[in-house]
């Protein structure tokens, strides 16, 4: 189907150009050929190194491949059965969902607040923008290291401040207690992604036509009323994009958990991605790791479709 549709415009172009001498037009001028030639290298690269591994991952999940014995033997549903019997899997699934939902809410609310701050006019904006972007532009592994120190069990400066104010006596042990560790991981995810969400939403704020804002002001709408009845509805598609991007990144990330807690204490912050890593790379059980990671796929697909829908709505706008 692709070939026939690609070929047709070619003949049209040739006909338009009068045929004859132009029949032997240089390849560099034939749009149909050119389009394929320009696109093909990227497509081949991605097909080989994304498409193929994806299929391989599915195949692995039905096999008994390990790092020590990489020969492929069919293993049926054994991996999945074993995963379902493992309470750590259910814990990881639950944590993945909690982390994603929790940080998504924080990302949307504070991303909007931050976007509003960043579009305002004030002196020293450059330095504020620089500091605000740090969490997003810094390699995750390194900002997680900064947080690991920030949340240190004994020397955490947060604990010191809380002690000075008199709220606590000893230490909080942010990463040592299951619920606090859960909260810490959510906070770090949100902290890292809020600047990205703010930048995406800024694009929406800037894109709102000035006459709409002025008209609303002339009509006597107060700040909050204008925000909730005009700005937010107009920005809805971009807010959705920011939220879903944030969700996908949180959902598939293992770095924050790996550096901060390694899934602990006792798997209370384990997520699917980190569990797949511990099983597949550190434990060497590639087949089971692959099966765990595959559970990310259906949810990802849903998020991708939702993003595309939001983008489509933006085109209408």
């Amino acid at each position, binding site marked *: 189907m692709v070939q026939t549709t690609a070929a047709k415009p070619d003949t049209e172009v040739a006909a338009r150009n009068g045929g004859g001498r132009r029949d032997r037009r240089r390849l560099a*001028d*034939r749009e149909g050929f050119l389009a394929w030639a*320009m696109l093909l290298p990227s497509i081949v690269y991605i097909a080989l190194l994304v498409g193929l591994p994806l299929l391989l991952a599915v195949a692995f999940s039905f096999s008994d491949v390990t790092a020590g014995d*990489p020969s492929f033997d069919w293993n049926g549903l054994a991996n999945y059965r074993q995963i379902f019997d493992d309470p750590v899997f259910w814990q990881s699934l639950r944590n993945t969902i909690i982390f994603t939902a929790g940080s998504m809410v924080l990302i949307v609310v504070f991303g909007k607040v931050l976007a509003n701050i960043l579009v305002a006019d*004030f002196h020293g904006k450059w330095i504020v923008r620089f500091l605000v972007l740090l969490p997003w532009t810094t390699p995750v592994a*390194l900002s997680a*290291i900064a947080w690991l120190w920030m949340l240190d069990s004994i*020397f955490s400066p947060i604990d010191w401040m809380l002690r000075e104010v008199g709220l606590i006596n000893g230490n909080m042990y942010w990463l040592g207690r299951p619920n606090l560790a859960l909260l810490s991981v959510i906070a770090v995810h949100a902290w890292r992604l809020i600047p990205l969400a703010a930048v995406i939403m800024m*694009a929406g704020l800037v894109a709102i036509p000035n006459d709409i804002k002025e008209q609303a002001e002339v009509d006597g709408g107060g700040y909050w009323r204008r925000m909730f009845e005009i700005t937010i509805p107009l920005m809805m598609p971009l807010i959705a994009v920011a939220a879903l991007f944030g969700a996908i990144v949180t959902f598939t990330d293992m770095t924050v958990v790996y550096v901060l807690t390694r899934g602990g204490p006792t798997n209370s912050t384990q997520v699917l991605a980190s569990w797949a890593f511990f099983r597949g790379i550190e434990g060497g059980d*590639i087949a089971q790791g692959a099966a765990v990671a595959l559970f990310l796929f259906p949810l990802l697909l849903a998020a991708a479709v939702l993003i595309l829908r939001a983008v489509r709505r933006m085109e209408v706008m």
Partner: protein
Amino acid sequence: MAAVDTSVDTHASVDTLRRRAILRHRLARVGVYLAAIAAALICAGPFLWSLITAFKQSPDLYQRDNNPFLYNLPSTRMHVRYLFQETAFLTFLWNTLWVGLLVVAITLVLSLPAAYALARLDRPWSGPVAIAIFFVYLVPPTLLFLSLSRLVVAVGLQDNTWSLVLIYPTITIPVSVWLLVGFLKGIPKDIEEQAMVDGYSRLGAFVRAVVPLVFPGIVAVIVFTFTLTASEFIYALAFVAPTAEKVISTGVPTELVRGDVFFWQSLQAATVLVAFPIAFVFNLFLDRFIAGFTMGAVKG
């Protein structure tokens, strides 16, 4: 309309209205500054703490009740020196740099023509292909790293930094295509048509007329691609184990922690040394990223 309202009002109430407006304006200004400072402190807080930590002496740092934000003992550059002289930090930096530059080169060579094909050579399939590329962009390393680690072994690149040069373009090409399509659509079609009238082929027009014009977009893509490769963690952790082959993102957290011993000051120095320059460069191009992303999204 507002003018009509005030003309009806008495003089006195106009005055109070004006005073109230000025007051409200001033309060709003104060609010903006307070919010901006709070946002900056929350976002940069961990890094400011890192910066202070990097120059602290151990007896000062490891004293729970010392004010952590002050130098209770004189500051020291000992731990920064340790980072450069006693650890493989410079090797990690160098590896990150050359991997990043090679990946940027591969990404541009592949994605620029692809973006042009999607943006300009109107094929019936360009829409679906653009969407497919967007989906690829959303496929995360966590889904692929296990099978890719077998592929890397199969091509003999395990424990070798070159494996990252091979694999990273799969992350960067989709983003770059997405960004570049946006930038290319911002260039008027007349430019190429004029070039073709002047005797260039379609390909020639692309190389000679379009590429120079899209240069700002290309620079944005270079910065973005480089940052993406420098930040990647999972592939680097899964494919490469020897110290000498590691990059920044895996080297710092794994090599500066020996068992239970954390070289905190050196670790935080490394964090700051990497974080600040990247954010600085990124800042210069922020407006271009916003422009590219929205154009790619709205017109794509």
